[in-house]
């Protein structure tokens, strides 16, 4: 890691009334990496996403993207700079078709309808949704909706893609497909930060894993090491991983 990191989170703290959702969290993400953030429910992972992407700025600390301080920027400005994200609960535009949804994302980098259309078609082919392009977004299965959401984010042509539980609720076949999709996304040069509960995906995809508990970062490292860490096993992982395994 010689060059400046793509994303540099420094001492982010977020309070909701008396509740400390993020407590002095720091980490970095380098260009081309896949970093997973894991932790029990309510650990503050989604809050951290919101702090980074401008949806709810932190009370203290800084977020640097490509060396630039983006802590106080509005969400749409951050998106324009190249950070795209998805939500824990799938967010698509319900009264649009699949293609129109993706075009809405593509319009960020192309003003004209035709260009956006082309880009959207390209993304849909890439994400394996091309056949469903004229279907209403509401008619899709959970898996297709998740793919759609990822496609919408990709259509904004991000450098950094942050996915909030994109694997939840998928069956094993669908899970393979999604893992494959994310690999190809990375191969195209997009850096990934994912919040995930599905450990199978985390273990397979991640270069590095960050573990958060009660708003604090407790461990960071390669996936194999992290799962061996007694602190992690105690805090959260143990039961669940063993039960699945």
């Amino acid at each position, binding site marked *: 890691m010689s060059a400046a990191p793509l994303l540099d989170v420094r001492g982010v703290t977020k309070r909701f009334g008396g509740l400390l959702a993020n407590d002095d969290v720091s980490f970095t993400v380098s260009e081309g990496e896949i970093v997973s953030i894991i932790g029990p429910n309510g650990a503050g992972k989604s809050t951290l996403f919101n702090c980074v*992407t*401008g*949806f709810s700025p932190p009370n203290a600390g800084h977020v640097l993207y490509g060396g630039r301080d983006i802590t106080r920027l*509005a*969400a*749409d*400005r951050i*998106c*324009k700079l190249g950070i*795209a*994200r*998805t*939500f824990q609960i799938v*967010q*698509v*535009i*319900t*009264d*649009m*078709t699949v*293609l*129109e949804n993706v*075009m*809405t*994302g593509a*319009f*960020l980098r192309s*003003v004209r*309808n*035709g260009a*956006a*259309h082309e880009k*959207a078609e390209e993304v849909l082919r890439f994400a394996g949704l091309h056949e469903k392009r*004229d279907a209403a977004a509401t008619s899709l299965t959970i898996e297709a909706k998740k793919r759609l959401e990822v496609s*919408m*984010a990709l259509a*904004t042509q991000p450098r950094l893609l942050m996915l909030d539980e994109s694997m939840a609720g998928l069956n094993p076949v669908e899970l393979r497909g999604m893992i494959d999709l994310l690999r190809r996304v990375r191969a195209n040069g997009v850096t990934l930060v994912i919040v995930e509960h599905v450990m199978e995906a985390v273990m397979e995809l991640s270069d590095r894993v960050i573990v958060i508990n009660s708003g604090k970062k407790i461990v960071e490292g390669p996936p194999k090491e992290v799962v061996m860490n007694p602190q992690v096993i105690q805090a959260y992982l143990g039961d669940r991983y063993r039960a699945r395994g």
Partner: protein
Amino acid sequence: MGVRTFTKRQVSVSAAVLVLLALYPLAVRGSFPMHLMIMVFLFAMLGVSWNIMGGYAGMFSFGQAAFFGIGAYTSSFLLTAYHVNPWIGLLAGGVVAALAAALIGIPCSNLRGHYFAIASIAFAEIVRIHFNNWKLIGAAEGLTIPMQDESLRNFMFHSSKAPYYYIMLGFLILSLGVCSWVTTSRMGFYLRAIKEGHDVAKVLGIDVVRYRMAAIMISAFLTAMAGTFYAQYILYLDPESVLILPISVQIVLVAMLGGAGSVMGPVIGAAILLPISEVTRVKLGFKGSGLDMIIYGTLIMLISVYQPQGVWGFLQKIGRKKR
């Protein structure tokens, strides 16, 4: 239908409708059928303008009368006080209304749904009350537009309603053009995303406040144009005739009945609602029982319950089945 493509059938139907509409003044006698169609076009235009902010961006404005009135008052005031040509007044009215829209857009930039609806009513009421007391523009007495020679330049015609008819038809086509340009362009996509939710819009890099603002301002501009037309057509205006809540409600109804969020919806809505209300007035009016308004209220309830997507959606469904 990511890219708008017109089928041959659509083009030929539109051309036929346009020819029929162009010939209509030659086919009818008397002023009432002309007046009726002018009112249909006027409210269709108002509905189309509402649609840009309400149907696409989900800002359910119940205060369009404010923009309508501002348009009518601006051109009429400029005409009566400074002899400014009404065509220039038309543009000035649009600009003033768009600025007023920006003024109200700022405090309302985070309001959605019901909250926006109430705020828009409050705004329109403030405008109405102020205009009602503002001596400069005639206060409650309103403005009477002085009779001038009839000419296109003066935007005034006495011997026939046909010129008003064609001008209003032109305005309607213009607003339909703006609306369909908005829907197929980036802005239309963005507005629909904003309607879905501010979060989903922001995550796609959409500057929510800016696009909402743009939608309100475009809508206000077109609504104000219709207002100037109204003033030149009726030649008199007072706050009670252009700034009241029932006008705003009727605009929403036209859009909803036809189909909010579709380009042609409000046109269909106006073509159904206006003849019903005008004809019941002429046929039932002198009995004075309130029956026509009861019918109107019932109609609104039935539409909301059974056809909430509007007639346009219903027609499209039928059209699809046929194909």
